[in-house]
C-alpha cells in the first residue's frame, strides 16, 4: 500500500513539475484548444437542457427534481445563467489584473494583449449579467432598474471598465498605453471583489442571496447544486474559449498594424 502511494505521489510530482515548467501557451497547445472548445460546447449544451427541462416540484423525490423556491418558482432557473455570467466577469477582471501585474514586471506586450483581451470579455459578460438580472427584476420587483445595491455595484463596475477602454483609446504610443492601462487594470481589479462580493452584503438588498449563500452557507438541494456548479464550470470554459480567440485576434491586429 505504502509502495503504491509512494509511486503515485512520485508520478503526480513529475506531472506537476512538467506542468509548472511549461509556458502558458505551450500548456494550452498541449491540451489542444480545439478539443477543449468542443468539450465546452457539449458540456454547456447538456447544462442548458438540464437547467431548463428538469421539473420544479414542491417535494423533490427523483434525482432530476428541482425544489420549489418560495417567491421565485420557475424564475429560479435564472440562477444557472445569471450567476455564472457574473462569476465569469470576476474571473476575467481578475485575470486582467494579473496580466497587468505581469506586464509591469516584464514589459512584454503579450501580457498587455492578454490583459486587455480579458477585460474585453469581462465587460461582455458583465453586460450580460446586468441584462439578465434586469429582466428578472422586471418580473420579480416590478421594474427593470431599482438601484438595488447589486444593480448599483454592477453599474459602477461597468463604468470603471468603460473608463479603462476610454483610457486606452485616448493614449498614444504602445508602451505608454500598455503601462498606464496595466496600472488602471490593477486598481480596477482590486475594486471588483469589493463591488461584487462585499458592498452588496454591507447594505440591505432585495437580491435573492439567501438561496445561494445565506450566512456563508450554500442552501441548495443536490440536483440544483450539481447543475449550478456544472454551469459555473461550463461558463468558465466558455470564457477560456472566447479569451483565446480574442488574444489571437489582438495578436494578428498587432502584427498587421505594429
Amino acid at each position, binding site marked *: 500500500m505504502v509502495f503504491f502511494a509512494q509511486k503515485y505521489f512520485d508520478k503526480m510530482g513529475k506531472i506537476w513539475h512538467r506542468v509548472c515548467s511549461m509556458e502558458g501557451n505551450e500548456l494550452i497547445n498541449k491540451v489542444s484548444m480545439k478539443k477543449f472548445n468542443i468539450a465546452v460546447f457539449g458540456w454547456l449544451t447538456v447544462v*442548458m437542457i438540464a437547467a431548463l427541462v428538469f421539473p420544479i416540484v414542491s417535494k423533490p423525490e427523483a434525482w432530476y427534481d428541482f425544489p420549489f423556491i418560495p417567491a421565485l418558482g420557475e424564475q429560479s432557473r435564472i440562477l444557472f445563467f445569471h450567476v455564472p455570467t457574473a462569476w465569469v466577469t470576476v474571473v476575467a477582471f481578475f485575470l486582467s489584473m494579473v496580466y497587468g501585474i505581469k506586464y509591469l514586471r516584464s514589459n512584454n506586450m503579450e501580457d498587455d494583449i492578454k490583459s486587455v483581451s480579458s477585460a474585453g470579455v469581462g465587460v461582455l459578460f458583465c453586460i450580460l449579467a446586468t441584462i439578465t438580472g434586469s429582466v428578472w427584476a422586471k418580473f420579480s420587483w416590478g421594474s427593470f432598474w431599482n438601484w438595488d445595491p447589486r444593480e448599483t455595484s454592477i453599474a459602477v463596475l461597468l463604468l470603471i471598465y468603460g473608463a479603462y477602454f476610454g483610457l486606452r483609446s485616448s493614449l498614444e504610443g504602445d508602451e505608454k498605453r500598455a503601462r498606464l492601462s496595466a496600472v488602471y487594470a490593477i486598481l480596477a481589479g482590486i475594486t471588483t471583489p469589493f463591488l461584487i462580493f462585499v458592498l452588496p452584503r454591507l447594505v440591505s438588498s432585495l437580491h435573492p442571496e439567501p438561496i445561494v449563500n445565506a450566512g456563508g452557507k450554500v442552501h441548495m438541494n443536490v440536483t440544483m447544486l450539481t447543475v449550478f456548479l456544472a454551469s459555473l464550470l461550463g461558463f468558465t470554459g466558455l470564457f477560456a474559449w472566447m479569451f483565446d*480567440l480574442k488574444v489571437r*485576434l489582438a495578436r*494578428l491586429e498587432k502584427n498587421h498594424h505594429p
Partner: protein
Amino acid sequence: MYEFLAQNPLYVVLSIVLICWFGIGLYLVRLGRKISILEQRMQS
C-alpha cells in the same frame, strides 16, 4: 409537435435558447477557423 410545445412552454424556451446557443457556437468555431487561416498566412 405544436400541441406539445403549446402545452409545455418551457420546451419553447429551451428550443429558443438552444437555437441561440448553436448560433453562437457556430460563430465562435468559424471565427476560430478564420483566425487559424490568418495565423498560418502570417507565418508563411
